[in-house]
């Protein structure tokens, strides 16, 4: 099973590393302030970002340490809050029937994860899409039908079916090191991309979609994250089929590409809508979706990759609530 042999060590290592990074960042910004480098506006922005991270990191890592119910609860809450931001940005909130149906779908799919009922969990994607297709028919208002149904299905795919895979991972007895690794790796993916882009420069990746991303940044993130995930993944997956270095590299590639993909998905959404951020709830960052977009595609991709080679919670009891 995952993390059976070295899981505790990896978990501890990741938590300590996260704390160290926060302290180092605070020291660097403090040094900038003390030596007077950088404009006051830049320093204020950096402090704001650091403060947001200081709040976000415990909120992300805490539920992982507290247990599977907490993880699934946190994923449900995150899904619903991201849905709210998406609804208000796209205007879907003006269709309460559709927005409500997607919210219900998110609750159901996370319930299936909580119940450890894989069949229901998987079936809910086509079933919920079918419900979304018919739920607005009684309104007898075909004007805008495709738009509201399309927006709703997109929302359910990202915040319901997609994100809930992260919660389902918690059904494994030793899920902690993998989930912690994913959460930190997608964040570091962004840092790698930013750093590589700034250091190497070069042609833009998709200037119409995201004007600050470069090809060198994308490739740098791909290399860095692959190495990180493969390196930390090796002790986590010792004793399973995934300890094969080639498969671990595959895992790293998936995390980096899916993470960057999620970022570009959100950039495309924002450009199409003509807005800059998805919200204002995180000072210095924007909305929740601006921060957590990388997880949206990483969660299902990693779940099925690891699930194919190893499996999640195969030795755990199923149908805990409904059985």
């Amino acid at each position, binding site marked *: 099973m995952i993390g059976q042999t070295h899981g505790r060590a990896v978990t501890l290592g990741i938590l300590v590393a996260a704390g160290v990074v926060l302290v180092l960042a605070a020291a660097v910004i403090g040094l900038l302030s003390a030596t007077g480098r950088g404009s006051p506006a830049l320093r204020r922005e950096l402090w704001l970002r650091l403060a947001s991270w200081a709040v976000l990191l415990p909120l992300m890592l805490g539920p992982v340490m507290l247990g599977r119910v907490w993880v699934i609860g946190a994923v449900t809450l995150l899904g619903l809050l991201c849905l709210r931001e998406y609804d208000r940005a796209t205007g879907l909130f003006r269709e309460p029937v559709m927005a*409500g149906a997607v919210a219900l779908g998110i609750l159901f799919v996370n319930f299936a994860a909580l119940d450890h009922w894989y069949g229901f969990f998987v079936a809910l994607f086509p079933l919920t899409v079918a419900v979304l297709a018919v739920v607005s028919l009684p309104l007898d208002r075909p004007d805008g039908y495709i738009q509201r149904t399309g927006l709703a299905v997109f929302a359910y795919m990202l915040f319901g079916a997609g994100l809930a895979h992260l919660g389902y991972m918690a059904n494994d007895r030793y899920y902690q090191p993998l989930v912690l690794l994913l959460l930190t790796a997608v964040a570091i993916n962004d840092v790698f991309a930013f750093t590589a882009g700034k250091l190497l420069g070069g042609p833009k990746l998709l200037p119409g979609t995201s004007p600050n991303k470069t090809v060198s940044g994308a490739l740098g993130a791909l290399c860095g994250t692959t190495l990180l995930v493969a390196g930390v993944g090796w002790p986590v997956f010792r004793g399973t089929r995934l300890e094969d270095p080639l498969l671990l590299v595959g895992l790293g590639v998936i995390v980096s590409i899916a993470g960057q993909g999620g970022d570009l998905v959100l950039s495309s959404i924002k450009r199409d809508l*003509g807005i800059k951020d998805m919200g*204002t709830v995180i000072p210095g960052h924007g909305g929740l979706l601006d921060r957590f977009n990388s997880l949206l595609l990483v969660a299902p991709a990693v779940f099925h990759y690891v699930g194919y080679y190893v499996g999640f919670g195969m030795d755990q009891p199923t149908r805990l609530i409904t059985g």
Partner: protein
Amino acid sequence: MKPWTLRPARDHGLTPGERLRSHGREPGLGSRAVAAGWRTLVRAYLGAAHGLRVDGLEHLPEPPFVMVANHGSHLDALTLAAALPRRMAANAFALAAGDTFFSNAPVAAFAAYAVNALPVWRRRTTAADLDALRARLQEDRAVLILFPEGTRTRDGVMGPFRSGVGALVAGTPVPVVPCFLAGAWAAWPPGQKMPRPGPMRLVIGAALRFEEVARDREGTMRVAAVCEAAVRGLGTVSR
């Protein structure tokens, strides 16, 4: 292919504090649920404690429109909103005095979420504010509830109407629905701490239209005068 019309919420990008005080605040799922629950409570209360009788519902046009009434009590906006049919009430906003209802966050949140109130700041309403309200009316097909006297009457006698309602509707196809509310001032006059039970009656009059009136000083004052006369007329009928 017919293009999609993707419109972010009018208050997108505002911080929570700014959003509470914004004329562009659009209620979401959570707000609607809270407002619906509050509406049920208010309707039960108005029926039980005040035996509210509503006449003239058939005069209500299709939204958008503006409701004007005499103002004597904090109960007025609650009653007008509660009397509307549910589908109109979900998109109905009362204009409330900013200094009274929006100066501190908890009261502002209550006014915004339970009563769907939008702030109007005495002596600080700009042309941009009026444009925003006009846009809400026409584009969102909203219902606006306002009290052109500008303040609650202290002695029970209806005061003169100010020209704000004219600035909103003159030159637009948005109708004004005059209403007279009897018994609200007697139940909860200004200065009294709690409302006292007593009969209340709401009379809704025929809609007035001001599409040909110019939006200048003379036009807006004429609109105010016509609305005032209509509401006074309903007041004599309701006795």
